[in-house]
Each structure stands twice: as C-alpha cells, then as structure tokens.
C-alpha cells in the first residue's frame, strides 16, 4: 500500500488518480459512519460522496503531515449530522428509517431474535445522544476507530474526547434504564422476558 502522506501530497498537487486512491481507501468507512448516523443507505451514499467532494475542495489547505482519515471522518460526520437534522429528510423518511431499523439492518443478521431486539433498542438509544456523543460512540464501538482518531474526528483533544465518551455512556445508561428497563436486567433475564 502506498504511503498515505505521499498520496495526499500528490492529490494536493492536483493528481485526480491520487485522490481517487484516497476515496477507494476510505469509502467504506465513510459510508458506514454516515449510515450509522443517517440510517438510510441512499442518504449515507450521498453524504459520503459529498464528504469526499468537500474534502477535495479543502485539500489544498489540509496539512499533509496530519492523518487524512480523521479529517475526512470529521467532514463526513458533520455532513451526516446536518443531513439527519434536515426537516425535509426527517419528515420524508421517518417511516422508512423505522422500518429499516426494525426489519433490515439488524434482524436479518442476528440469529437470535432477542439479540436483534436488544441491538435495535441500543441503536435507538444511541440516536438519542447529542450529535458529538453519537459520533464518538459510533466511531469507537461500532467502527473500532482509535481514541486518537475519534478525538481528531470531533476536533477535540484526546482527554476531552475521552471524558465526553464517558459522559455519553452515562447518558446511554440513563436512556436504557428509562426507556428499555428490561434491557437493564442481568444478562439472560432480559432475553427471557423479551420485547
């Protein structure tokens, strides 16, 4: 694999194939983080594409000594959050999102219906967190992004990002306890009672 700094430098100099290399290298992660936030495949595709276009527009200002991926993640997550907040999209797709969450995104892959139900509810609970908290949770727990990269993606020092993630988990526990008390029971008990 080519050294990423060299690829970024070539892209900054206007080499389209170099930028295409960066797109191919990061498109899956960009799409996935967008999907986790907007919860709609078509919308996530648009967001990821727009994120790369905006990254290209800003590339000449990007310091190639910095890692490209967290910078890109920041652009994409901001776009995804803005997209989700759009009243137009919210109104138009609320029903579809709910259907996606219930019937496609999780139940198809989880062997156990109770596990799928738990996953669906946890994902819904994450969606109630503040945007920055959601981004941190998705990057760290769903996409295995490092602490340093997640912090860079939200534009905060690592220490601040850690404290905000800690606060996010505390809020998540609150939400689960209040909305899904059966999930808060000891492992095994929740699945017996079901949803």
């Amino acid at each position, binding site marked *: 694999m080519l050294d990423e700094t060299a690829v970024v430098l070539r892209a900054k100099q206007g080499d*389209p194939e170099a*930028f*295409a290399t960066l*797109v*191919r290298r990061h*498109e899956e992660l*960009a*799409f*996935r983080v967008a*999907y986790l936030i907007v919860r709609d495949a078509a919308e*996530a*595709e648009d967001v*990821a*594409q727009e994120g*790369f*276009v*905006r*990254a*290209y*527009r*800003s590339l*000449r*200002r*990007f*310091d190639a000594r910095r890692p490209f991926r967290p910078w890109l993640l920041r*652009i994409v997550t*901001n776009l995804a959050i*803005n997209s989700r*907040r759009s009243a137009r999209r919210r109104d138009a797709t609320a029903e579809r999102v709910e259907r996606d969450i219930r019937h*496609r995104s*999780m139940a198809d*892959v989880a062997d156990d219906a109770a*596990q*799928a139900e*738990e*996953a669906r509810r*946890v*994902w819904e609970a*994450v969606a109630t967190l503040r*945007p*920055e*908290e959601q981004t941190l*949770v998705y990057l760290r*727990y*769903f996409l295995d992004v490092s602490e340093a990269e997640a912090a*860079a993606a939200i*534009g905060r*020092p690592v220490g*601040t990002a850690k404290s905000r993630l800690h606060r996010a988990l*505390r809020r*998540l*526990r*609150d939400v689960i*306890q209040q909305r899904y*008390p059966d*999930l*808060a*029971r*000891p*492992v095994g008990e929740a699945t017996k009672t079901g949803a």
Partner: protein
Amino acid sequence: MRELAQDLIPVEAMLGRAARAVAYPPAPALASRVLARIEDERSLQRVALPVPGVRLAAALAAALLLAAGAALAVPQSRDALADFFGLGHAKIEVGPVLGPAPPVLSPESFARPATLAEAARAVAYELRFPMRDGDRLVPDEVYLQGGGESAVVIFVYDDFDLYQTDRGIFGKGAPGGDQVHEVEISGQRGYWIDEGGHIAYHFDAQGRLVVETQRTVDRATLLWEEHEGLGFRLETSLAQADAIALAESLR
C-alpha cells in the same frame, strides 16, 4: 420491578453486540462519481462564473481572489484588504493559504478556562446566552481569550462554540468564495461559511493580529453582530437554519 444500579448496566457489552448486529449495506464505489463531480465543478468555474444566479459572495470572491490570495499568508498585508466580506467585528478573506495550514485547536489550547462569573467581570457588556424554550443554555465550558477591551468570551456547548466580543475583530480565511454565504440574523447581515478547512484568527482592538489564535476550523462558522455593537462567531456542526435560529435566540 427490580432495577439495576445505573453503573451496573453493561452498556459497553450492549454496544459491542449492537455493533456486531448491524447489517451494513454494501459500500458504494464512489471514486468515479467523486471525480466526475469535481470535474463538473471545475468546468463550471472555468465557464460560468460569474453568471446570473451565482451568489454575490462567489462573484466577489472571484473578482478579489488574486488580491486576497497572498494576504492570507502575509498578515501584515491584511490592512490593505480591509473588510473584504466585512462586518464591524469580522473580516473574511478568501483565497489560498501559502505554507502549512495551522492546526485544529480547541479553545483550551489558546484561551484560559474561566467561570461564568469571571467571564462576566472581564467584559463591559452583559454576556449573551442562547435560549431554548425560554431558558438560558448554560455552557459546558467557559474560556477567556485575550484581555482588556478586546477580550473574547468563549462558551463551549456540545454542538457549537460561541465566541463574543465587543471590541475585538474575528478574522476568517476561507479557501473558496463559494464557501461564504450572506445570511440575515434578526435583520442584521451575517455570513455563513461552510465547513471544511477555513482558518480562524483574531485581531485585538487595535487591529493587530493575535498570532497564537490562528487555527484551522473544520466546522461551519456563522459570523454576525448585533445593534449594540457586539460581535459573535459560532463554530458549529449544526445545519445553517438551526445555527441561525440559535443566533437569533441570544439574549
């Protein structure tokens, strides 16, 4: 119903299971589409600027790009550019930056932590707060940058950082004029700068650049001022309409 103590809810294990259960749709192959978009935009810039319907900001940017280009890298030449996209408390300069971009910094890197009471004592005006449902939104963190008449108070919230000053001047360097949009906030002119790689800096009340405040901002920025002469900058991940609503809520 028996309830677990909040701390005993195994939320990290739950997240792990939820993460494994997500069925991601296949990631699209974006490279060719992204390159096509970029080429389309290049073609439009070559052929169609300015044209009817192009935003005023973009047209101005095209006209002044050459003049502004070198200035972003040469602070002492900023005076010659006075108020390109200007407000009383803000100068927005459009053009490429020479040399490495400054780092992305959070307020704790260039300002000192303060309490609300300290911030209130440091300025000669009544601090403004965003409101929600009639309640003042109390910031998570408060910082003071600079001192005296050009002090800047920074309120940090989850979704935005709010800067306010009565004598200082906010500077912004935007790489492209199409990032800058004129907006209206409570009847006052303001500017919205799309997210992505613009530079923020700060001038003191005498118009001198405060070098240590230069930093790259990846979030969108809203700049505006109010009748009483206060200047504001909002750096945010909010959508433009939400940011303007927040700005208009300041009391």
